[in-house]
């Protein structure tokens, strides 16, 4: 990756993020730029941190501190699909720990690990604000609800197919967001 990985990959997104704040408050865009940088660089490498700091005129040490503080900012490499299983109390009351065990069994890894092919990382996480649909997980921050063994296996098969179809591994990190219900919102500009 070049020294300008963030700006070369996401120049327009960086400008949009900065435009949300008064010019002298550019530091406010730090988290948004770190999200973009971890996609551009794969994870928050020293170069990624340096570039975000440079764009925002911040001390790289401060930016590194942010990366360490927030759990969705990734300082280490991860699989193409990061799977977050909520095992907090409300989910645990409805089988979340069993779901996590089953998922790890299927992938042959333990929580916190990445599969040897680099496709999946599994992590147990705190509450995901969807306790009525437990047990549940997020795959690259996309929700999958009410999971039983069959649903879990179907999701893993779909992900493997998608990755094979894309012809590259990992297929993607946390890219720019897309609407969770495509077509669910009408365009009223007309």
């Amino acid at each position: 990756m070049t020294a300008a990985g963030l700006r070369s990959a996401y120049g327009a997104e960086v400008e949009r993020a900065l435009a949300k704040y008064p010019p002298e408050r550019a530091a406010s865009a730090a988290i948004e730029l770190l999200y973009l940088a971890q996609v551009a660089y794969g994870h928050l490498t020293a170069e990624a941190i340096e570039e975000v700091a440079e764009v925002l005129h911040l001390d790289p040490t401060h930016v590194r501190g942010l990366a360490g503080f927030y759990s969705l900012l990734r300082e280490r490499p991860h699989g193409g699909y990061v799977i977050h299983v909520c095992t907090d109390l409300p989910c645990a009351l409805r089988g979340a720990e069993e779901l996590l065990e089953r998922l790890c069994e299927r992938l042959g890894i333990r929580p916190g690990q990445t599969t040897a092919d680099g496709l999946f990382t599994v992590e147990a996480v705190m509450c995901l604000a969807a306790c009525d649909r437990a047990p549940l997980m997020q795959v690259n921050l996309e929700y999958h609800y009410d999971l039983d063994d069959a649903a879990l296996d179907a999701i893993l098969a779909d992900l493997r197919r998608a990755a094979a179809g894309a012809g590259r591994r990992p297929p993607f990190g946390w890219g720019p967001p897309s609407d969770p219900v495509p077509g669910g919102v009408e365009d009223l500009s007309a």
Partner: protein
Amino acid sequence: MPERFVVLRHRELGDLSSLRAYRAAGGYEQLQRAVSTMKPAEVTAVVRASGLRGRGGAGFPTGAKWAFVPDDAGPRYVVVNNDESEPGTFKDHEITLANPHQMLEGAALAAYAVGAETVYVYCRGEFWHEMARLQRAVDDARRAGLLGADLWGRGVRIDVHVVAGAGAYICGEETALLSSLEGDLGQPRLKPPFPTVTGLFGRPTVVNNVETLANVPPIVAHGADWYRSLGTSGSPGTKVFSVSGHVERPGNYELPLGVPFRELLELAGGVWRGRALKAVLPSGASAPAIPAAAVMDLRLDWESVAERGSLLGSASLIVLDETVNMAWVAAMTTRFFEHESCGKCSPCREGTFWLDAVYRRLIGGRARPGDRALLGAIIGQMDGACFCPLGEFAQCVPRSSLADFGQDYDALEAGAGGRPAGGRP
């Protein structure tokens, strides 16, 4: 008591996430009426008279908060707290997906009332794809002339920006949220000064929860008396109750405040699998557990739950059946707070760490003599010593489980496993 939809109007009217559907239901008419015919102070006055209290957990009077914003020159801000992260809370998630414009109209009304030109909607990072829908709603409203510059030709400007957090429960605390929004670590700040005087970028800032703001357009539409006809005198209006855990039908239920727990439990299908109720956590991980015998007839409003020695908070009720060991429940809430402690103050950082260490050995079958007294001692050292509410909330479930469910600790010390029967429904 039947459900009454003031916030979850999509349950009656169908999906309101599109601007077309929301406008067909009268959407943005209150904003137009306010901007065109009302003074900002009149908007604050009606919200104040309605008795609306903050739905994020603190229950602070919303109109009073708006009125604290000083009438000086210079920018001020409205910040929408959509960092919904309390275990057991999933109401703002539903509003964001199914009725986002009502919250945006409420935020715009708040901005008009306090003279803010900029609104930031701070969403937890895990709402990544939900944020795209919210951004679409903002874009649609702006293109339709309902947000943006010179609204209805009155020279009023209200810009809305959707902003992502990145995974930190503490950012639901309003001053930590503002620190995060300024590009800093999400750690709380000393109060006073309160954000309404010195908030975002050092300027007056109103921070309101998603559900709170979604109440505002109906209040402006129907008036304070109508709103006060719902709920109790101290806790007016409806509340979205998030019910999770061991019930047949977990979900959000919107009911007038003051509804007895018994009726909410019935709506949620009762305790699952025909089992008996053991206890309820009325505000996620952040309130003392209430034993079954005391909860069935308890009225769910802020005063009544406080009188019972607990907290209604954000009204996220975690229902626990008879198979659950309450020491295990305390271990689970402790694990949460240990993970989410921001590290700023040592009573919380160290206290949650040591509580977690003791609970792990308790539920791991490695209890030591005196562990219960040790838990009590740690709680005693945290009590009143933490910088912000997180460290105080962390004590609630451990303390109440020690006081009311000592036999569950006996069972663990005797070597019984602590996990509930659990399993998938």
